[in-house]
């Protein structure tokens, strides 16, 4: 039974939202980790392997972060694998053939990604060609350009500075400092939020629940840092993922741009009549995606210490799968960055765990495909249940 809002205390309205789906995701991740942990006799959870695992997930995770916004806006980007390959190739060529310094090379790769994103976004937003087609075209075009400019060769080796981007680790002490700072930041922002709600006279959530949850997260962060520090320390690419993820979470929750993207994906006509500039925002989404593909390209080239013509092939599918597993709806309007990162982690765990068990690689494809289908099925049926329960 529902009563008018003003009859009930605000406490009720701010009721803790039990988001079944985000929990299902974490439970799935824990299950997968446990299963591999047991099947590999604990080896999967060793410090060395965790370090590897996080290094492996980074490229897909960075792509998935941008892909979330693209899909939320109601589009899709099939070109990101080729684009990461191309931007990584541009970086390698500029450094190996032209001797550019690492910083300039990174900037050039990211700028190239953004520029090509702009080109695709223009077709989608201002020429109304469906994103599926534009980016399918982009996938072919960018791969073609890569093969053309690299003359079909593998470009290697890169400078030590460039290699360090994906292959170095944080010193132990700095790792701990970052972990503590991160946890501190979580507590601070929660406290500030509570404080503001109090000031506005909104009844706040139960502090035990909020801070208890944060305590668990903080302990997990510290535990992870400890595990990684037992090997080489926190991998730098993991920091890149955390930083990009944080940035995009901020964009989607705190800026009007982020809010408008969700609105456009949810109902474009209503968004337009609310005064939202559909075209410009759509264009921006593709620019951001392109820039992130540039970041992914840099990490990829750095990790392999080479750029090859086939780099990043099929990554677009892994990135899309990571988003979808993370609860992003292909219908647009719904999805979140944290889910996409967890999705990427799940995908990487499967690859990593199965190859540790010496299972032939074809099984990885099959299992990942099945998980994708099951994830979407769980999502759909949980939604059905909640409306029919």
């Amino acid at each position, binding site marked *: 039974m529902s009563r*008018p809002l003003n009859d009930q205390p605000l406490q009720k309205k701010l009721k803790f939202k039990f988001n079944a789906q985000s929990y299902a995701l974490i439970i799935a991740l824990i299950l997968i980790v446990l299963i591999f942990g047991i099947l590999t006799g604990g080896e999967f959870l060793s410090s060395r392997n965790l370090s590897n695992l996080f290094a492996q997930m980074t490229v897909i995770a960075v792509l998935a972060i941008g892909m979330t916004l693209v899909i939320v806006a109601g589009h899709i980007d099939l070109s990101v694998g080729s684009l990461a390959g191309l931007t990584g190739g541009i970086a390698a060529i500029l450094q190996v053939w032209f001797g550019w310094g690492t910083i300039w090379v990174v900037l050039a790769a990211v700028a190239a990604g953004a520029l090509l994103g702009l080109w695709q976004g223009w077709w989608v937003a201002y020429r109304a060609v469906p994103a599926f087609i534009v980016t399918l075209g982009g996938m072919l075009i960018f791969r073609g350009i890569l093969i053309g400019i690299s003359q079909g060769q593998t470009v290697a080796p890169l400078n030590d500075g460039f290699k360090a981007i994906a292959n170095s680790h944080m010193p132990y002490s700095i790792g701990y400092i970052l972990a503590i700072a991160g946890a501190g930041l979580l507590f601070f922002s929660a406290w500030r939020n509570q404080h503001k709600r109090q000031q*506005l006279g*909104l009844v706040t959530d139960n502090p035990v629940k909020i801070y208890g949850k944060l305590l668990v997260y903080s302990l997990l962060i510290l535990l992870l840092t400890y595990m990684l520090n037992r090997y080489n320390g926190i991998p730098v690419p993991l920091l890149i993922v955390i930083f990009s993820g944080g940035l995009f979470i901020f964009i989607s929750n705190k*800026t009007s741009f982020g809010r408008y993207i969700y609105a456009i994906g949810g109902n474009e006509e209503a968004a337009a*009549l*609310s*005064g939202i500039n559909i075209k410009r925002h759509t264009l921006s989404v593709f620019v951001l995606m392109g820039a992130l593909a540039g970041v992914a390209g840099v990490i990829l080239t750095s990790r392999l210490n080479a750029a090859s013509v086939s780099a990043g092939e099929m990554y677009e599918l892994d990135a899309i799968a990571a988003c979808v597993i993370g609860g992003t709806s292909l219908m647009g309007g719904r999805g979140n960055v944290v889910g996409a990162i967890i999705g990427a982690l799940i995908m990487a765990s499967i690859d990593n765990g199965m190859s540790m068990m010496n299972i032939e690689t074809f099984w990885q494809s099959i299992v990942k495909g099945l998980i994708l289908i099951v994830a979407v099925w769980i999502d759909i049926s949980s939604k059905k249940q909640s409306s029919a329960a």
Partner: protein
Amino acid sequence: MSGYALQMKRITKAFPGVKALDDVTLSVKKGEIHALCGENGAGKSTLMKILSGVYPAGSFDGEILIDGKEVSFRDIRGSQDAGVAIIYQELALVPEMTVGENIFLSSDLMREKVLNWNKLYVEAKRWLDQIGLDIDPQRKLGELTVGKQQLIEIVKALTKNAEILILDEPTAALTESEVKILMGILKDLQSKGVTCIYISHKLGEVMALADSVTVLRDGRTIDTLNASEITEDTIVSKMVGRSLTDYFPYEAHEIGEETLNVHNYSFYHTSADEKVAHNVSFTLRKGEILGVSGLMGAGRSELFISLFGGYPGKKSGEVTIDGKPANIKKPSDAIRAGLAYVSEDRKRYGLILGMEITKNATLAALQHVMPKGLIDSSLELKSAEAITSKLNLKAHSLEAKVDQLSGGNQQKVVLSKWLFTDPKILILDEPTRGIDVGAKTEIYKIINELSQQGVGIIMISSELPEVLGMSDRILVMADGTISGELSREEATEESVMKLATRRRDNHEPAFK
């Protein structure tokens, strides 16, 4: 045998966080038209969704008896097989398909291995003719007005030869003449022995049609009234739990200087070179309530969407706001100039259904909750809370998604969104569509309040009593032009209808 076509006993249904129905009982006699009344969110639609199998057996408590036999439906098909057909409050048609395809979407005609298109369209034509609708069955449904689409929905239900026909606010989008057509159809069906459950917030229709009325409030059955007991006042007092005296709380108020001036305004269809509206001129003063009346298809909504910058076709003419020429190319220009447009089609143009109430409410004026350039979610919640409680919105949480709200409460969210922009000129397109009597009065009060604060209000409405009751001045539109203007004193149902039907004679009528 009981003589009841349908009995629903002790129905209880809960959604996460809301008990939508609590021990509801509904008994409908064979061959009667049974009205179901109640405020927004009382549970009417939910009850009907249970009856039609949208919420399958097992997802609720209680029993359903049809012709005295207990039934349980696993899905909509199950209820269809038992002779139940439902027309939902929210249209369930496919705009990309033709009228004919839509009519037979779930029928056996569409399930043959090789579709017999000729047969399908001939059949469709026959059904359309039967209820006096002159619509080409091969036209795309999306090209029709909402009102006509609603009639197609009714035709679709008729083809299923239902024994129990449920209509959930079928007339919300219909004009008076369309309503008359519908009432004729229902009386006709009744004489053929069809039982009908009719949900409507328009009590006039209920009075004209219903043999008995069941009133729900807050998910509970309050009472069932027989023919002899039905009066508008009893229904209203049962619905809201108190008696309402003044339906149109019009108050004389001060009218200020001119705020909007539209001169010789014309605009064209997006594709064709045909004009939608032709040389429209009118003015609006501060604090004035300007009613806009006319038949469906007269171009009222299109005119104001176009003035708001939401209609892509070519346009010409001058628009001045507060004496300054306004160059409105897109909705954001209009919003900046102080305009707000509350659309008649809330699902399509008003709401982001999958988004929270708070976020919908602030969408058109997000800068109000971004004091430091970033969205302040506490402030957002606080603002949404303030604006929605003014409209008496009922929801279990402001952070609930809009698609979980009842139809009338969704309408209130759209209103909240536009009130939150602090408009100087508020354009309301069918503002009380689907809203219960109590809440309607609330909305009229808000309209009054705004006009006292100097907001110029344009109220497009197909409900004559509403236009007559609330407006200071009435514009009547016909065929894309203004066919006349009436002061509050001059306006009567007859004078408005006369202007609304002018010039229609030399055109092919939409209804025979």
